C-alpha cells in the first residue's frame, strides 16, 4: 500500500502506517503541533490562499515566472492540476493584496476563476518559515523517544507531495528521518499532479482512496489517469468501505491459492525468492522486525511463492493435479504442494521424504493466510526440530531463525527446480546463487 496526501494530508496519511508508535495519540500530537506552529506563523506573517483556474495550457510557466517578479508578495503554493484545457494552482499571497484584481489585470484572457480558500494561512511559502525548524525539532524529538518510527521495509510506503526540483520524482521512503524531512517542508510548494503521476506510473497504483473529502479524487479524475477512485467523505462511506473490504477478505480467503494480490510478475517473484534464499537468518536479531527480513514482507514472500509456483506448475508437464509437484534424486522425493487447512485456509507445504521408505524427513508449512504474522511450522524429523508459529503461541528468536531457514530452503528448491539434486537446509549457506 502507498500513503500520501496533499499538504497537511501527508502527516495525516501516516496514520495508515506504523509511523506513529502509539497510533491516534501520536497522530494527534503531531497534527496539533503542526497546526499550532502554523497558527503562530500566521500571526507573524499573515497570508491568504487562492485557487486560480487558468484557461489554456502552458505548463504553469506564465504564473510561475510572473510570481518570481512580485518581490516576495505572491507564491505558487500548489501545482495541482493541468489538463489540455486548463490548469489549477493555489497561490499564497500576503494578507491585504487584492489578488483577483491583480491577476485579472495582468492575465486578462487566462484567468477563469479566483477562489479564496477557507484557510487562515500562507502555506507553502516563506510566510511559514518560522514553523519549519520548530516542527522539525518536535518531530526529531518524538523520533528520538520512539514515538515515531520507520515504516516496515517492503510494506506500506510513504510518498511526498513535494518535489524539491521541478523535474524530479517525489520522495518515496520507509525511513522515518526521510519522512520527517518531507513533513517539515512546510515552505515548499506542493506538486500534486506530479505525485499522482509517480504513484500510477512508477508504483503501479491502480486504486486511490481519499479520506475525509472528495476534492483530490475530483482532481485526479480530471487528470485522466486510469485508476479506480473512491472518496470516504462521510461515515456511511466509511461503513461501506469496511464492508467491501471485509467481503473482499472473505473472497480472498476462499480463493487464496493461485490468487496473489500483489500482482507480481515472475521475474519480481524470482527476485524475492532469491532474496529470501540468500538471506542469512542468523542476522535476525529483533522479533519486531521479522516481518521484513530479507527486505520483503511476509505478504510479498507469500505472493512470490504463489506466483513462482504457478509459473513452475504451468511450465512443467509432470505437474500433478491438486497443485502438487514432485522432484526426485537418488535418495529422496521433494514435493511442493498447495493445500487447504481448516484453520488457515491455504498453506504451501514443502515435504522431503525418503525414496526408499517414504518416511517423512522434513515438512515445512507456510501459511498463505492474510494475517500480519507468519503462521507456519516446520518438522525436521532428522534433527528433531519441530517448531510451530501460531497465534497466541510464544516463540523464541531461535524459533524464528529456524523457521526462516526452512523458508529459505523452500525458496532455494523452487529456484533450482530444473537443476539436478535437492538442496538440504544445512547446505544453504555454502550454495551459490542460481
Amino acid at each position, binding site marked *: 500500500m502507498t500513503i*500520501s496526501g496533499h499538504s497537511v494530508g501527508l502527516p495525516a496519511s501516516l496514520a495508515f502506517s506504523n509511523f506513529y508508535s502509539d497510533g491516534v495519540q501520536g*497522530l494527534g500530537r503531531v497534527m496539533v503541533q503542526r497546526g499550532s506552529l502554523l497558527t503562530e506563523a500566521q500571526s507573524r506573517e499573515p497570508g491568504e490562499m487562492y485557487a486560480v483556474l487558468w484557461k489554456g495550457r502552458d505548463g504553469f510557466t506564465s504564473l510561475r515566472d510572473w510570481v518570481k517578479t512580485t518581490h516576495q508578495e505572491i507564491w505558487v503554493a500548489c501545482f495541482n492540476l493541468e489538463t489540455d484545457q486548463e490548469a489549477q494552482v493555489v497561490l499564497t499571497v500576503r494578507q491585504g493584496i487584492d489578488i483577483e484584481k491583480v491577476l485579472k489585470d495582468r492575465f486578462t484572457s487566462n484567468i477563469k476563476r479566483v477562489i479564496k480558500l477557507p484557510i487562515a494561512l500562507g502555506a507553502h511559502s516563506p510566510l511559514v518559515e518560522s514553523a519549519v525548524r520548530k516542527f522539525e525539532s518536535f518531530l526529531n524529538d518524538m523520533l528520538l523517544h520512539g514515538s515515531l518510527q520507520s515504516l516496515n521495509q517492503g*510494506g506500506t510506503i510513504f510518498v511526498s507531495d513535494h518535489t524539491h526540483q521541478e523535474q524530479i520524482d517525489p520522495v518515496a521512503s520507509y525511513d522515518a528521518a526521510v519522512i520527517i524531512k518531507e513533513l517539515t517542508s512546510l515552505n515548499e510548494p506542493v506538486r500534486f499532479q506530479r505525485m499522482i503521476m509517480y504513484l500510477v506510473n512508477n508504483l503501479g497504483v491502480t486504486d486511490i*482512496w481519499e*479520506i*475525509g473529502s472528495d476534492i483530490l479524487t475530483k482532481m485526479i479524475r480530471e487528470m485522466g489517469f486510469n485508476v479506480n477512485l473512491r472518496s470516504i467523505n462521510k461515515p456511511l462511506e466509511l461503513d461501506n468501505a469496511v464492508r467491501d473490504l471485509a467481503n*473482499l477478505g472473505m473472497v480472498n480467503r476462499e480463493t487464496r491459492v493461485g490468487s496473489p494480490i500483489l500482482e507480481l510478475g515472475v521475474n519480481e517473484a524470482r527476485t524475492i525468492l532469491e532474496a529470501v534464499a540468500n538471506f542469512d537468518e542468523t542476522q535476525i536479531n529483533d522479533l519486531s522486525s521479522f516481518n521484513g527480513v530479507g527486505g520483503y514482507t*511476509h505478504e510479498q514472500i507469500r505472493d512470490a511463492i504463489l506466483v513462482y509456483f504457478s509459473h513452475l506448475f504451468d511450465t512443467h508437464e509432470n505437474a500433478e493435479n491438486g497443485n502438487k509437484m514432485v522432484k526426485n534424486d537418488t535418495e529422496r522425493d521433494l514435493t511442493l504442494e498447495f493445500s487447504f487447512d481448516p484453520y488457515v485456509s491455504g498453506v504451501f507445504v514443502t515435504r522431503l521424504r525418503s525414496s526408499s521408505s517414504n518416511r517423512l524427513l522434513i515438512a515445512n508449512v507456510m501459511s498463505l493466510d492474510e494475517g500480519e504474522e507468519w503462521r507456519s511450522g516446520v518438522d525436521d524429523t532428522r534433527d528433531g526440530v519441530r517448531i510451530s508459529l501460531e497465534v497466541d503461541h510464544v516463540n523464541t528468536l531461535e524459533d524464528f531463525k529456524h523457521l526462516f531457514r526452512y523458508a529459505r530452503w523452500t525458496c532455494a528448491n523452487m529456484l533450482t527446480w530444473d537443476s539436478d539434486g535437492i538442496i538440504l537446509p544445512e547446505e544453504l549457506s555454502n550454495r551459490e546463487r542460481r
Partner: protein
Amino acid sequence: MSQIGRLAILSPGQGTAILPDWADASGMKDVCNNIQLALPDGPDVQKLLMTPAEQRLVSALNAHILLSAVVGCTSNQLRPHLNQS
C-alpha cells in the same frame, strides 16, 4: 467491488470542509479523546467536530484537529482489513 490492485490512501489538505456527521462515526469518541490529550487547554475536539462547517472558526489548528479526527477514525476501522505491514 470485486478486487483491489495496488492501493494508495490519500488525505486532503486544509481547505477541506469536514462534515459534522463524522461526530457520530463508530469509534469517533475514542479518537477524539486521544487527540484531546494533545489539547489540554482546548478546544474541545468533539464539540468542534459537531459544529457545522460554516460556523467553525477558520484556523490552521482547527483544520488540523478535524482532519486528524477523521483520518484517525478511518484508519482505525480500515487498517485491520487492508492487509498492510
